[in-house]
């Protein structure tokens, strides 16, 4: 975009000249990696935010064909199972409830409808930008019960934890959180344990690392011997991080490096982690759309804060609804196939009528392929 003045921390990370230098360096280093002569090197970007950047700036088109990006499970909206969406709707349909949610969770399909659909049928569903806005709404509407749809990885977990702590401190009784928070580490582990996997390295989750630090990612390097570079979200960040992963591969190293040190400190954010530990505890398991049930991958509100837990407050259907049979989200998530190779991509599964998780949000790999790769465009991206 043309600009009247530079936007700090944005423009320098979208600089075309820097990008050209990096893409040349990436092409050069891929040429020096022996593995790349046998099969494409596969690097997974864990975060939906990375996926969005890759598509928005057309980064795949700048990379040599011996390098493949695999779009990971890090889109919390995408991996939300249908049964949980149905629970949201059951809560939202209660006459006393004002149901508040982040914007892009509105369109996630449940078994019958999305929150957007429930709103159209009369449920009081409102979009907010922060759980604190939801708490303010509760204070303004003492006769109603305000539920906040807590969704996201460790990135958003501290803000809902702090909101619950604020509700308790302010003595607000008509506020609760429906926690669908998930944690990325067990999921990366599940992906690494799957037998049909070829991943050679990872772009680590920048926003999650801002909270948890880089230490929790060490197992990927130590146990699974795969390089990880925690990456920022601007296009130059992504290119630099890819180069750093490739450099590790070339040199036979497997370490956790931090490209995003300007935001993500090695040790994470202490107060944020403390708030999370105070309010939340790990669930035995949590279901992910496209990946199935993963042990210790979700958190719920602790007993001590039960009055702020929508799951305890309301009687919920909590049905387990299987992913549609034709849906190949799991294979796409593991990099076994590309979105376009899925049986239902662009036919029965589109952003208007998403069957699978990855078509739901603009951060999902399939929706990004559809929107930015364009089904109309007959260039073979596969």
């Amino acid at each position: 975009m043309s600009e009247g003045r530079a936007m700090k921390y944005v423009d320098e990370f979208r600089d075309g000249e820097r990008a050209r230098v990096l893409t040349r360096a990436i092409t050069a280093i891929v040429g020096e990696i022996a593995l790349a002569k046998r099969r494409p090197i596969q690097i997974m970007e864990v975060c939906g935010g990375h996926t969005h950047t890759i598509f928005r700036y057309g980064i795949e088109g700048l990379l040599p064909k011996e390098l493949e990006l695999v779009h990971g499970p890090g889109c919390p909206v995408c991996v939300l199972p249908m049964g949980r969406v149905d629970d949201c709707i059951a809560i939202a349909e209660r006459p006393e409830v004002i149901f508040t949610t982040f914007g892009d969770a509105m369109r996630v399909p449940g078994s019958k409808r999305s929150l957007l659909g429930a709103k159209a049928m009369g449920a009081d569903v409102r979009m907010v930008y922060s759980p604190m806005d939801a708490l303010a709404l509760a204070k303004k509407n003492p006769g109603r019960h305000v539920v906040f749809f807590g969704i996201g990885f460790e990135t958003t977990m501290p803000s809902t934890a702090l909101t619950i702590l604020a509700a308790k401190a302010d003595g607000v009784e008509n506020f609760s959180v429906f926690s669908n928070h998930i944690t990325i580490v067990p999921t990366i582990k599940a992906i690494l344990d799957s037998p049909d996997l070829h991943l050679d390295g990872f772009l680590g989750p920048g926003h999650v690392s801002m909270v948890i630090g880089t230490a929790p990612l060490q197992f990927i390097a130590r146990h699974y011997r795969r390089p990880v570079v925690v990456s920022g979200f601007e296009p130059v960040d992504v290119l630099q991080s890819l180069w750093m992963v490739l450099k590790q591969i070339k040199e036979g190293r497997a370490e956790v490096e931090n490209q995003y040190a300007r935001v993500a400190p090695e040790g994470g954010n202490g107060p944020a982690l403390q708030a999370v530990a105070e309010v939340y505890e790990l669930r035995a398991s949590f279901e992910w759309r496209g990946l199935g049930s993963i042990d210790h991958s979700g958190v719920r509100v602790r007993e001590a804060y039960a009055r702020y837990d929508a799951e305890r407050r309301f009687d919920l259907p909590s049905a387990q609804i299987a992913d549609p049979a034709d849906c190949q989200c799991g294979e796409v998530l593991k990099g076994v196939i590309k979105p376009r190779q899925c049986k239902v991509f662009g036919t029965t599964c589109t952003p208007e009528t998403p069957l699978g998780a990855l078509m739901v949000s603009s951060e999902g790999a399939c929706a990004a392929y559809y929107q930015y790769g364009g089904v109309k465009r007959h260039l073979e991206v596969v």
Partner: protein
Amino acid sequence: MSRPRTLGRIFVDEVTLAHGGGGKAMKDLIDDVFVRAFDNPTLAPLEDQARLWISELSARGDRLAFTTDSFVVDPLFFPGGDIGKLAVCGTVNDLAVGGAVPLFLSCAVIIEEGVSLEILRRVASSMADTARAAGVQIVTGDTKVVNKGACDKLFLTTTGIGVIREGRQLSLAAARPGDVVLVNGLLGDHGAAILAARGDLALDAPIESDCAALHGLIEALLAAAPGTRCLRDATRGGVATVLNEIAEASAVGIEIDDARVPLRPEVRGFCEILGLDPLYLANEGKLVAVVPAAEASAALAAMRAHPLGREAVSIGEVHREEEGCVIMRTTMGGTRVVDMLVGEQLPRIC
């Protein structure tokens, strides 16, 4: 012309269902609020229809342009405009992008009971001022009052008639490979201003709607670039949607350059924070013009000489390849497809 009659007056503070009942209260409301504000001889007799002289119309061109649009914006008043100004400009622009000179508007008003007379007067006076400045007359109308909750405060529908001069043939299907794509200024102001004005973002953005009637600018553009292929005001769905409509109707590809898309720094920052794409934000005073390359510099110069086109720029070109597609060349040197949105743009979580 009928003899001048005394206009009714209204002395209450709020509209009630009685004002939609068809009796004296309704007549007084229409007289006092709308007839007084719109004040023109075609409206004054208050027949059930406005009567327009065919001879006057045919003197200006050989085809009528006829369009209608409804306005349901929330909030009713926002930085840079209000629902009344929007309702006049929107319909004037829908006529003007067809190459028509806008002449007459109708105005239908649906009012939720309980709306204050003060709001109604402000909206009517804004419509009247905007129409006067645009040189169009509001010549007929209708008023309904509905139960609380049956509409949101105030809905307006304006229908417009204009005349297209002989020989003008603007069409969405007329873009040809080699043509240049122009916009008349900074994009996304209206969409960002409305989102900020709703107040639920806790973001104070000093952004004003670009709401404006574009027919003057369009006349200047067409005089300088008579070969102009097509014009479209980039309202709901933004420039991205208009470009897709042109690419599809003309069976051409359009490539735009990210670095040339003009944005106010405030709008850019607003979109960065909320995870919105400014190409899909609504505009109410911006148009997309596709002109032959040979006329592009004349077209740009003419727009830049007009107060509503000072920041006009070329943002891309029309190609033979990638028929029906809009491609953006990114600042990174990559490309991506700029598709139509499925629904409304929803902010991303992270």
